[in-house]
């Protein structure tokens, strides 16, 4: 899956595939009622309408903000757990089983629980997102910490570092790749989960707009909102890749 995330640039093949899909879509739109498959120019109009209207774009920003806040909190929480497991002996035995259990809970179950537990909409969404995302951070980073070579640890120890120095000079730089990977995985995941979370009770956000589109049988709307999300995902993956290229520049390039 990561390999797939890594290469998001469109190659010639991509253009051709998308071209075929668009032509097929446009052709079908002439044989099927527009509320099922609207033609491309209607879609484009709707997309531009969302893009140029602050009243509508607001919903995209709200969703993005929710995702970013939730991911930040998940990251801090997840990182703390992974460091705890990495440095407090035996804590792994207590934390890991619970973590695997939590990861087994479907997003929809979190939604149900959140509705029952939290009257406030924002807390619900935050709870659902954090519950879904923090285990990924913990596990990825814990793997990173476990993967630190004892050789390098011994080398640094021979210079007598403080705990803080050990962390900043060896552990943190060692797990940068794991941190980047975990963010890559989680941005996409959190955005998808946010859609589900915003379906229940929210009056803002892309998920809410998708629900409204469905209730009004507004196919162009549904597609325009979906496209907005995809654009957000592409932008964030692109930024993460930029960051990765900079932060991991010490690695031999594979191509």
């Amino acid at each position, binding site marked *: 899956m990561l390999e797939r995330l890594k290469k998001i640039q469109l190659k010639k093949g991509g253009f051709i595939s998308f071209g075929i899909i668009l032509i097929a879509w446009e052709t079908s739109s002439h044989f099927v009622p527009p509320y099922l498959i609207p033609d491309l120019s209607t879609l484009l109009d709707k997309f531009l309408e969302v893009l140029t209207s602050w009243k509508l774009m607001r919903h995209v920003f709200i969703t993005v903000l929710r995702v970013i806040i939730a991911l930040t909190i998940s990251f801090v929480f997840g990182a703390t757990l992974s460091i705890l497991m990495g440095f407090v002996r035996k804590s792994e035995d207590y934390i890991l089983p619970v973590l695997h259990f939590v990861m087994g809970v479907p997003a929809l179950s979190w939604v149900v629980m959140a509705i029952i537990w939290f009257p406030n909409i924002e807390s619900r969404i935050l709870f659902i997102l954090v519950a879904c995302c923090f285990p990924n951070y913990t596990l990825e980073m814990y793997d990173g910490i476990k993967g630190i070579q004892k050789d390098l640890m011994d*080398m640094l120890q*021979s*210079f*007598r570092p403080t705990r803080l*120095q050990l962390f900043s*000079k060896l552990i943190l*730089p060692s797990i940068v790749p794991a941190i980047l990977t975990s963010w890559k995985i989680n941005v996409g995941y959190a955005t998808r989960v946010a859609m589900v979370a915003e379906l229940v009770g929210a009056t803002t956000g892309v998920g809410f707009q998708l629900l409204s589109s469905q209730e009004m049988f507004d196919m162009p709307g549904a597609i325009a909102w979906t496209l907005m999300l995809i654009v957000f995902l592409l932008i964030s993956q692109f930024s993460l890749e930029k960051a990765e290229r900079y932060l991991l520049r*010490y*690695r031999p390039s594979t191509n």
Partner: protein
Amino acid sequence: MEKKIIVVDNVKKIYKIGRKQDFVVADGLSFQVSKGEVVCIVGKTGCGKSTCFNMLLGIEPTTEGTIRIEGRDPYKDFNYFQTKIGAIFQTDRLLPWRSSLENAVIGLELVEKSKEAREEIALKWLHRLGLEGFEEVYPYQLSGGMRQRVGMARAFTVNPDILLADEAFGHLDQVTSNQLREIFLELIKETGKTCLVVTHDIREAIEIGNRIIVLGKPCRNLLDEKIPEFSSEKEKGEYEERIFSVIDRGEV
């Protein structure tokens, strides 16, 4: 009597493998090293040389017996030995995200010292080891021999009183390892450091050391003597053979 800077007294080291099983790596290991001496430690592969090396370095405790360096325990008095012991390892152990210079400077980074001062020192050593022009490159851009040079520069940069080396030239090709050994010899002669060099290469030990300690398995000293001056190659060859047979038979 000369002052003994390293005193190893009846050290025993046991690793627990499995619930009830013990693995004895060292038993009855004792030797002493005076200031300025270059002592080579040889022994069969797997006899526990690296384990002893780690115990001397203070990153591994002894199970029984004591190790004293300048009268202190390198494991218990861990922090005292900052910049006092330098280590060169079998593999370069460079941090991949740091350039040569940043790797060489790391020991000084841990003690309070200005950036300019510590980089000046590290640069001096990198240049001394023939790495001009490679200060800013990452380890993956260096050859194995050059990486090992950076590892040596890193050890010399903290200007330690005692230098420990564990098979520092072992895994390199013949030419490179000869070159590095020569530079190493030159540097330790020049700086007059107390050195403990672990190796499996008898010829290397005779080349570098004033004294040789042969370890048995589990680690204990079978033989501990001054390396004599040789008047001929033949004499040297005979000496090598003698050491070899001690290692091989595990007794004197």
